[in-house]
Protein backbone atom coordinates (compact mmCIF):
# COMPACT_ATOMS: atom_id res chain seq x y z
CA UNK A 1 0.00 0.00 0.00
CA UNK A 2 2.81 2.41 0.86
CA UNK A 3 4.49 1.67 -2.48
CA UNK A 4 1.28 2.18 -4.43
CA UNK A 5 0.54 5.48 -2.67
CA UNK A 6 4.13 6.62 -3.16
CA UNK A 7 3.69 6.07 -6.88
CA UNK A 8 0.38 7.93 -7.00
CA UNK A 9 -1.95 9.43 -4.38
CA UNK A 10 -5.31 7.65 -4.26
CA UNK A 11 -8.49 7.41 -2.32
CA UNK A 12 -9.12 4.15 -0.50
CA UNK A 13 -11.49 2.58 -3.02
CA UNK A 14 -9.25 3.42 -5.99
CA UNK A 15 -6.32 1.86 -4.09
CA UNK A 16 -8.12 -1.52 -3.90
CA UNK A 17 -8.43 -1.53 -7.71
CA UNK A 18 -4.81 -0.52 -8.22
CA UNK A 19 -3.53 -3.24 -5.85
CA UNK A 20 -5.63 -5.86 -7.65
CA UNK A 21 -4.33 -4.69 -11.05
CA UNK A 22 -0.75 -4.77 -9.72
CA UNK A 23 -1.12 -8.51 -9.15
CA UNK A 24 -2.19 -8.76 -5.51
CA UNK A 25 -5.47 -10.40 -6.49
CA UNK A 26 -8.86 -9.44 -5.10
CA UNK A 27 -8.29 -6.94 -2.33
CA UNK A 28 -11.43 -5.80 -0.55
CA UNK A 29 -12.23 -2.27 0.53
CA UNK A 30 -13.10 -3.79 3.91
CA UNK A 31 -9.42 -4.74 4.29
CA UNK A 32 -7.82 -1.68 2.72
CA UNK A 33 -9.77 1.06 4.53
CA UNK A 34 -8.92 -0.05 8.09
CA UNK A 35 -5.26 -0.45 7.08
CA UNK A 36 -5.20 3.03 5.57
CA UNK A 37 -6.65 4.30 8.85
CA UNK A 38 -3.85 2.57 10.79
CA UNK A 39 -1.17 4.02 8.49
CA UNK A 40 -2.68 7.49 8.71
CA UNK A 41 -2.83 7.39 12.51
CA UNK A 42 0.75 6.19 12.57
CA UNK A 43 1.73 9.35 10.68
CA UNK A 44 2.74 7.51 7.51
CA UNK A 45 -0.07 8.89 5.36
CA UNK A 46 -1.40 12.34 4.73
CA UNK A 47 -5.07 12.83 3.85
CA UNK A 48 -6.60 15.60 1.80
CA UNK A 49 -10.20 16.21 0.81
CA UNK A 50 -10.75 16.49 -2.94
CA UNK A 51 -14.00 17.41 -4.67
CA UNK A 52 -15.34 14.69 -6.91
CA UNK A 53 -17.07 15.24 -10.27
CA UNK A 54 -19.53 12.48 -9.38
CA UNK A 55 -20.70 12.30 -5.79
CA UNK A 56 -19.38 13.69 -2.50
CA UNK A 57 -15.81 14.89 -1.87
CA UNK A 58 -13.28 12.10 -1.35
CA UNK A 59 -10.31 11.73 0.95
CA UNK A 60 -7.11 11.24 -1.03
CA UNK A 61 -4.10 9.69 0.68
CA UNK A 62 -0.42 10.25 0.02
CA UNK A 63 2.81 9.41 1.83
CA UNK A 64 4.32 11.65 4.45
CA UNK A 65 8.09 11.87 4.91
CA UNK A 66 7.76 9.27 7.66
CA UNK A 67 5.79 7.09 5.26
CA UNK A 68 8.55 7.30 2.64
CA UNK A 69 11.15 6.46 5.27
CA UNK A 70 9.07 3.47 6.42
CA UNK A 71 8.71 2.31 2.81
CA UNK A 72 12.48 2.58 2.27
CA UNK A 73 13.13 0.58 5.46
CA UNK A 74 10.63 -2.08 4.52
CA UNK A 75 12.01 -2.41 0.99
CA UNK A 76 15.49 -2.82 2.39
CA UNK A 77 14.31 -5.58 4.76
CA UNK A 78 12.40 -7.28 1.94
CA UNK A 79 15.40 -7.27 -0.39
CA UNK A 80 17.68 -8.65 2.35
CA UNK A 81 15.17 -11.39 3.26
CA UNK A 82 14.51 -12.44 -0.30
CA UNK A 83 18.21 -12.46 -1.22
CA UNK A 84 19.00 -14.62 1.83
CA UNK A 85 16.25 -17.06 0.93
CA UNK A 86 17.33 -17.12 -2.70
CA UNK A 87 20.92 -17.86 -1.64
CA UNK A 88 19.75 -20.87 0.39
CA UNK A 89 17.57 -22.12 -2.44
CA UNK A 90 20.44 -21.78 -4.94
CA UNK A 91 22.94 -23.55 -2.69
CA UNK A 92 20.56 -26.48 -2.18
CA UNK A 93 19.83 -26.74 -5.88
CA UNK A 94 16.15 -26.19 -5.31
CA UNK A 95 16.30 -22.90 -7.16
CA UNK A 96 17.16 -24.66 -10.41
CA UNK A 97 14.48 -27.23 -9.76
CA UNK A 98 16.84 -30.07 -8.74
CA UNK A 99 15.68 -31.24 -5.29
CA UNK A 100 17.00 -34.53 -3.94
Amino acid at each position, binding site marked *: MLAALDQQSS*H*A*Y*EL*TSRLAEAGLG*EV*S*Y*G*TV*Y*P*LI*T*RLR*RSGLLHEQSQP*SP*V*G*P*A*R*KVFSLTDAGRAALTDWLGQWKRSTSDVEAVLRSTGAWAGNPR
Partner: protein
Amino acid sequence: MPAAVRSVVQDLQRRWRRLGVPRALREAVAADVAADLHAAYLQGRPLEVVLGVTSEHFAEQVARENGWLVPWPMYGRMLTSAALGAAGAIAAGIVLVLPATLGIVAAVGWVLLWAGVDLGSQVTASGQTYWYAPIVYAIYTLFGMGFVAAVLAAVRRGLKAAVELRRTLRAGLVLLTVSAAISLPLALAIGHASDYSNAPFVVAAEFSLVLGLASVALVAPRAWALRVPS
Protein backbone atom coordinates in the same frame (compact mmCIF):
# COMPACT_ATOMS: atom_id res chain seq x y z
CA MET B 1 -26.87 8.99 -1.81
CA PRO B 2 -28.12 5.70 -3.28
CA ALA B 3 -30.29 3.66 -0.94
CA ALA B 4 -27.85 0.72 -0.95
CA VAL B 5 -24.98 2.95 0.17
CA ARG B 6 -27.16 4.73 2.75
CA SER B 7 -28.22 1.38 4.21
CA VAL B 8 -24.62 0.22 4.71
CA VAL B 9 -23.49 3.55 6.15
CA GLN B 10 -26.48 3.72 8.53
CA ASP B 11 -25.67 0.21 9.75
CA LEU B 12 -22.07 1.25 10.42
CA GLN B 13 -23.23 4.39 12.23
CA ARG B 14 -25.60 2.31 14.36
CA ARG B 15 -22.81 -0.06 15.40
CA TRP B 16 -20.43 2.79 16.24
CA ARG B 17 -23.15 4.61 18.14
CA ARG B 18 -23.74 1.48 20.20
CA LEU B 19 -20.06 1.52 21.10
CA GLY B 20 -20.55 5.07 22.42
CA VAL B 21 -18.46 6.78 19.72
CA PRO B 22 -19.27 10.53 19.70
CA ARG B 23 -21.36 11.72 16.76
CA ALA B 24 -18.70 14.06 15.35
CA LEU B 25 -16.16 11.24 15.07
CA ARG B 26 -18.44 8.63 13.56
CA GLU B 27 -20.06 11.05 11.09
CA ALA B 28 -16.67 12.12 9.68
CA VAL B 29 -15.66 8.51 8.98
CA ALA B 30 -19.14 7.60 7.77
CA ALA B 31 -18.98 10.40 5.19
CA ASP B 32 -15.60 9.13 4.06
CA VAL B 33 -16.82 5.55 3.65
CA ALA B 34 -20.05 6.74 1.99
CA ALA B 35 -18.04 8.63 -0.65
CA ASP B 36 -15.96 5.53 -1.44
CA LEU B 37 -18.96 3.19 -1.54
CA HIS B 38 -20.79 5.72 -3.72
CA ALA B 39 -17.94 5.49 -6.24
CA ALA B 40 -18.12 1.68 -6.16
CA TYR B 41 -21.89 1.81 -6.60
CA LEU B 42 -21.53 4.03 -9.67
CA GLN B 43 -19.25 1.37 -11.17
CA GLY B 44 -22.05 -1.13 -10.73
CA ARG B 45 -20.22 -3.26 -8.16
CA PRO B 46 -22.30 -4.95 -5.44
CA LEU B 47 -21.40 -3.35 -2.12
CA GLU B 48 -21.14 -6.72 -0.31
CA VAL B 49 -18.42 -7.73 -2.80
CA VAL B 50 -16.70 -4.34 -2.48
CA LEU B 51 -16.63 -4.57 1.32
CA GLY B 52 -15.51 -8.20 1.23
CA VAL B 53 -16.33 -8.60 4.93
CA THR B 54 -19.53 -8.29 6.95
CA SER B 55 -20.50 -4.76 7.94
CA GLU B 56 -20.18 -5.87 11.57
CA HIS B 57 -16.54 -6.91 11.01
CA PHE B 58 -15.82 -3.77 8.99
CA ALA B 59 -17.34 -1.53 11.66
CA GLU B 60 -15.27 -3.24 14.34
CA GLN B 61 -12.02 -3.02 12.34
CA VAL B 62 -12.56 0.66 11.57
CA ALA B 63 -13.39 1.34 15.23
CA ARG B 64 -10.25 -0.52 16.32
CA GLU B 65 -7.94 1.26 13.89
CA ASN B 66 -9.44 4.65 14.83
CA GLY B 67 -8.82 3.92 18.51
CA TRP B 68 -12.54 3.95 19.27
CA LEU B 69 -12.66 0.70 21.27
CA VAL B 70 -12.34 2.58 24.54
CA PRO B 71 -14.76 2.99 27.46
CA TRP B 72 -16.71 6.07 26.39
CA PRO B 73 -18.40 7.77 29.37
CA MET B 74 -21.68 8.46 27.46
CA TYR B 75 -22.78 11.04 30.02
CA GLY B 76 -25.28 12.63 27.64
CA ARG B 77 -26.97 9.34 26.81
CA MET B 78 -26.96 8.37 30.49
CA LEU B 79 -28.65 11.58 31.65
CA THR B 80 -31.17 11.44 28.81
CA SER B 81 -32.08 7.85 29.71
CA ALA B 82 -32.33 8.83 33.39
CA ALA B 83 -34.61 11.74 32.51
CA LEU B 84 -36.88 9.43 30.50
CA GLY B 85 -36.98 6.94 33.36
CA ALA B 86 -37.77 9.74 35.81
CA ALA B 87 -40.52 11.09 33.57
CA GLY B 88 -42.07 7.64 33.33
CA ALA B 89 -41.92 7.19 37.10
CA ILE B 90 -43.50 10.62 37.70
CA ALA B 91 -46.27 9.83 35.22
CA ALA B 92 -46.88 6.50 36.98
CA GLY B 93 -46.86 8.36 40.29
CA ILE B 94 -49.51 10.83 39.17
CA VAL B 95 -51.69 8.12 37.61
CA LEU B 96 -51.26 5.38 40.22
CA VAL B 97 -49.60 6.52 43.45
CA LEU B 98 -51.59 9.69 44.12
CA PRO B 99 -55.03 8.04 43.78
CA ALA B 100 -53.76 4.99 45.68
CA THR B 101 -52.50 7.20 48.51
CA LEU B 102 -55.86 8.92 48.83
CA GLY B 103 -57.62 5.57 48.75
CA ILE B 104 -55.33 4.00 51.36
CA VAL B 105 -55.60 7.02 53.69
CA ALA B 106 -59.39 6.96 53.36
CA ALA B 107 -59.52 3.21 54.02
CA VAL B 108 -57.25 3.44 57.06
CA GLY B 109 -59.29 6.39 58.34
CA TRP B 110 -62.50 4.34 58.10
CA VAL B 111 -60.88 1.44 59.93
CA LEU B 112 -59.58 3.72 62.67
CA LEU B 113 -62.96 5.39 63.07
CA TRP B 114 -64.67 1.98 63.20
CA ALA B 115 -62.15 0.97 65.87
CA GLY B 116 -63.15 4.01 67.87
CA VAL B 117 -59.94 6.01 67.44
CA ASP B 118 -60.55 9.73 67.75
CA LEU B 119 -58.69 11.08 64.72
CA GLY B 120 -59.28 14.63 65.88
CA SER B 121 -57.10 14.11 68.96
CA GLN B 122 -53.84 13.82 66.97
CA VAL B 123 -52.94 17.45 67.46
CA THR B 124 -49.37 18.70 67.37
CA ALA B 125 -47.94 21.81 68.96
CA SER B 126 -48.69 23.80 65.80
CA GLY B 127 -52.34 22.77 65.98
CA GLN B 128 -52.38 20.63 62.84
CA THR B 129 -53.72 17.06 62.63
CA TYR B 130 -51.34 14.69 60.94
CA TRP B 131 -52.69 11.22 61.73
CA TYR B 132 -52.22 10.14 58.13
CA ALA B 133 -48.66 11.52 57.89
CA PRO B 134 -46.89 8.18 58.59
CA ILE B 135 -49.01 6.47 55.92
CA VAL B 136 -48.23 9.16 53.35
CA TYR B 137 -44.51 9.13 54.20
CA ALA B 138 -44.41 5.33 53.89
CA ILE B 139 -46.14 5.39 50.50
CA TYR B 140 -43.94 8.20 49.23
CA THR B 141 -40.83 6.38 50.47
CA LEU B 142 -41.93 3.32 48.49
CA PHE B 143 -42.57 5.58 45.50
CA GLY B 144 -39.10 7.07 45.94
CA MET B 145 -37.54 3.61 45.86
CA GLY B 146 -39.53 2.80 42.74
CA PHE B 147 -38.45 6.12 41.24
CA VAL B 148 -34.76 5.32 41.77
CA ALA B 149 -35.29 1.81 40.36
CA ALA B 150 -37.01 3.26 37.27
CA VAL B 151 -34.19 5.76 36.67
CA LEU B 152 -31.50 3.07 37.00
CA ALA B 153 -33.45 0.65 34.79
CA ALA B 154 -33.69 3.36 32.12
CA VAL B 155 -29.94 4.06 32.39
CA ARG B 156 -29.25 0.31 32.11
CA ARG B 157 -31.33 0.16 28.93
CA GLY B 158 -29.81 3.31 27.47
CA LEU B 159 -26.21 2.20 28.09
CA LYS B 160 -26.67 -1.49 27.42
CA ALA B 161 -23.45 -1.87 25.39
CA ALA B 162 -21.34 0.30 27.70
CA VAL B 163 -18.39 -1.02 29.66
CA GLU B 164 -18.42 -0.97 33.46
CA LEU B 165 -22.20 -0.62 33.43
CA ARG B 166 -22.78 -2.84 36.45
CA ARG B 167 -20.37 -0.88 38.63
CA THR B 168 -21.91 2.37 37.40
CA LEU B 169 -25.40 1.20 38.38
CA ARG B 170 -24.35 -0.15 41.79
CA ALA B 171 -22.58 3.07 42.73
CA GLY B 172 -25.43 5.08 41.20
CA LEU B 173 -27.93 3.29 43.42
CA VAL B 174 -26.04 4.34 46.52
CA LEU B 175 -25.43 7.93 45.42
CA LEU B 176 -28.97 8.48 44.10
CA THR B 177 -30.38 7.37 47.45
CA VAL B 178 -27.99 9.69 49.29
CA SER B 179 -28.78 12.58 46.95
CA ALA B 180 -32.52 12.04 47.48
CA ALA B 181 -32.02 11.90 51.27
CA ILE B 182 -30.23 15.26 51.08
CA SER B 183 -32.05 17.13 48.33
CA LEU B 184 -35.68 16.25 49.13
CA PRO B 185 -35.65 17.49 52.76
CA LEU B 186 -33.76 20.59 51.59
CA ALA B 187 -36.34 21.19 48.87
CA LEU B 188 -39.10 20.74 51.46
CA ALA B 189 -37.30 23.19 53.74
CA ILE B 190 -37.18 25.75 50.92
CA GLY B 191 -40.87 25.19 50.37
CA HIS B 192 -41.62 25.52 54.07
CA ALA B 193 -39.49 28.68 54.38
CA SER B 194 -41.30 30.24 51.42
CA ASP B 195 -44.68 29.19 52.82
CA TYR B 196 -44.92 26.69 49.94
CA SER B 197 -44.88 29.46 47.39
CA ASN B 198 -45.34 28.53 43.77
CA ALA B 199 -43.35 31.54 42.56
CA PRO B 200 -41.17 30.53 39.57
CA PHE B 201 -37.95 31.36 41.38
CA VAL B 202 -38.84 29.16 44.36
CA VAL B 203 -40.04 26.23 42.23
CA ALA B 204 -36.94 26.53 40.02
CA ALA B 205 -34.70 26.49 43.09
CA GLU B 206 -36.39 23.35 44.43
CA PHE B 207 -36.22 21.52 41.08
CA SER B 208 -32.62 22.62 40.45
CA LEU B 209 -31.56 21.33 43.84
CA VAL B 210 -33.15 17.91 43.37
CA LEU B 211 -32.22 17.46 39.68
CA GLY B 212 -28.74 18.89 40.14
CA LEU B 213 -27.84 16.52 42.96
CA ALA B 214 -29.44 13.61 41.09
CA SER B 215 -27.36 14.36 37.99
CA VAL B 216 -24.18 14.46 40.06
CA ALA B 217 -25.26 11.18 41.66
CA LEU B 218 -25.33 9.58 38.18
CA VAL B 219 -22.30 11.22 36.54
CA ALA B 220 -19.92 10.70 39.47
CA PRO B 221 -20.36 6.90 39.62
CA ARG B 222 -19.84 6.67 35.85
CA ALA B 223 -16.62 8.66 36.05
CA TRP B 224 -15.47 6.58 39.03
CA ALA B 225 -16.32 3.25 37.34
CA LEU B 226 -14.27 4.20 34.27
CA ARG B 227 -11.29 5.60 36.15
CA VAL B 228 -10.86 3.06 38.93
CA PRO B 229 -9.89 -0.41 37.67
CA SER B 230 -12.26 -3.20 38.73
